[in-house]
């Protein structure tokens, strides 16, 4: 009996940890490597219709307890990503992350991802640093409803929406996803942030602002999942600052059926293995016979 097995609605994972979008998921080989290192699934880099080089460097900076990045959605375009998807899907469960500027574009991308072998799609409705995409559409309930419902009509695989914490309307947007038939919610994306270098009197990132990730955002993410669980019925996937099994357990107890890890992989490529063994030890010691029994435990 594998106590770490979890179900995100219809999608079964043997391990609850998923590689977050944008980390070690630019090529099929890097995703395959992560499956071998204990990840239950991998979300691809966000893929759009056309090739994009993203923002000029600096696109990344370290701060105590986290990172601020503005990669700017670099990606080879959906057509250029086919081979990587097929390589990755052969090796494990792949969730295709996509971004677009309209419901139609999202749907077309989702259809391609399904054809390439994706087990689910994750709609990036929350990138904080690419103009015209992400956060700018992901904070409007009507837009979110129309995108999710259009994608749902186009594919058979589960459809997850990745939401931004940069709004006071988080649960309303979550409800819009659920009402439109969405199969799950991924929260949170990065927090909109800026770093200035006083010596040169300018923001460090070429894009000026970016998204904060890493341990600094974990309590914000845990709170977001807790709020969403309290008002929604669809499965949740927690993400934001997870570095160890305790962080993962917090997200699960707040209401997440699975979790994603991104920033922690920079310093420790083996972090999934450590989280898996830590979670197993904890579950045994505290009498949780399955991940399902832990999901939302902090609400009782």
């Amino acid at each position, binding site marked *: 009996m594998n106590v770490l097995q979890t179900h995100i609605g219809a999608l079964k994972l043997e391990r609850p940890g998923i590689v977050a979008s944008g980390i*070690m998921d630019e090529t099929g080989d890097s995703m395959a490597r992560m499956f071998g290192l204990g990840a239950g699934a991998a979300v691809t880099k966000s893929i759009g219709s056309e090739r994009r*080089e*993203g923002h000029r460097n600096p696109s*990344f900076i370290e701060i105590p307890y986290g990172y601020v990045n503005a990669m700017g959605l670099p990606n080879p375009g959906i057509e250029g990503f086919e081979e990587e998807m097929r390589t990755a899907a052969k090796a494990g469960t792949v969730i295709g992350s996509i971004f677009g500027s309209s419901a139609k574009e999202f749907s077309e991308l989702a259809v391609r991802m399904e054809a390439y072998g994706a087990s689910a799609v994750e709609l990036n409705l929350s990138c904080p640093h690419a103009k015209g995409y992400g956060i700018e559409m992901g904070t409007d309930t009507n837009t979110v409803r129309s995108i999710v419902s259009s994608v749902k009509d186009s594919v058979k695989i589960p459809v997850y929406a990745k939401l931004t914490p940069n709004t006071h309307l988080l649960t309303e947007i979550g409800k819009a996803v659920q009402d439109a038939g969405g199969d799950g919610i991924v929260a949170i994306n990065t927090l909109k942030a800026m770093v200035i270098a006083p010596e040169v009197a300018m923001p460090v990132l070429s894009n000026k602002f970016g998204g904060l990730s890493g341990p600094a955002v974990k309590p914000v993410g845990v709170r977001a999942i807790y709020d969403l669980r309290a008002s929604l019925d669809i499965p949740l996937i927690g993400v934001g600052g997870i570095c160890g099994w305790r962080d993962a357990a917090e997200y699960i107890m707040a209401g997440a059926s699975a979790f994603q890890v*991104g920033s922690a992989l*920079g310093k420790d*490529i083996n972090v999934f293995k450590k989280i898996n063994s830590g979670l197993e030890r904890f579950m045994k010691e505290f009498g949780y016979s399955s991940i399902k029994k832990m999901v939302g435990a902090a609400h009782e």
Partner: protein
Amino acid sequence: MNDIVRIASCRKESHDTKTFGFVMKGNAKAGQFVMVWIPGVDEIPMSLSSTGDTKCITVKAIGDATKALHGLRVNDVIGIRGPYGNGFSLKKNQRVLAVGGGVGISALMPAIRAHGADVIIGARNKAEVIMEPEVRKYSNNVRISTDDGSCGFKGNAVELTKEVISANSYDLVIGCGPEIMLYHLHKACVDSGIECQLSLERFMKCGAGLCGSCVMDGMRVCEDGPVFGGRQITKLKEFGRIRLDPAGAKVKL
């Protein structure tokens, strides 16, 4: 971590190459690199050519960012992130041959200083040979190759390496230079059964093991490298053949 530093020294190495010194917090290992921010221009990965209290980068002016760096003077301000990557791993008493192609010799300098080594400096012509006097301070056996024969051995650095390793006995070859050179250097080491550690290069965004823009067969050049061992390199199907462009698409080298 990040640091904003003032350029403390600037030395001309050749007509198109300069070494900049700066004082940054923390220690660095031979073979590690830093991300260098030229405010308002770009941020690029640069190997450290000196890892002491004053750290150095040696810059050949080839693109916008490196040309902008060449325009900076002592006391100007740049941003430094890092050091990143694994660095070389040299054991005491190992007989080491260091092979540097072009500006690549600068990335080997910290290892040559700390460990000592026989050294091959490869360059297109005499004017492109850099750091020879500095290398001679730490090595009794320095050979130079130039493609046009204007200085030392006529031919490329790998041809000279083959000659040197057949006449001497080495435990390890370390190398840095253009990928085509490293590809053949790796092959020469495998053929003669000598272990090697080569410092590889790819387009980078984060430099810290996260974004995946520098991966080669799923290995991150920034975090799993930039120094890879000969056996690791043998497994890299993309080495010498394919790189990712800034959009993450595969491009033939």
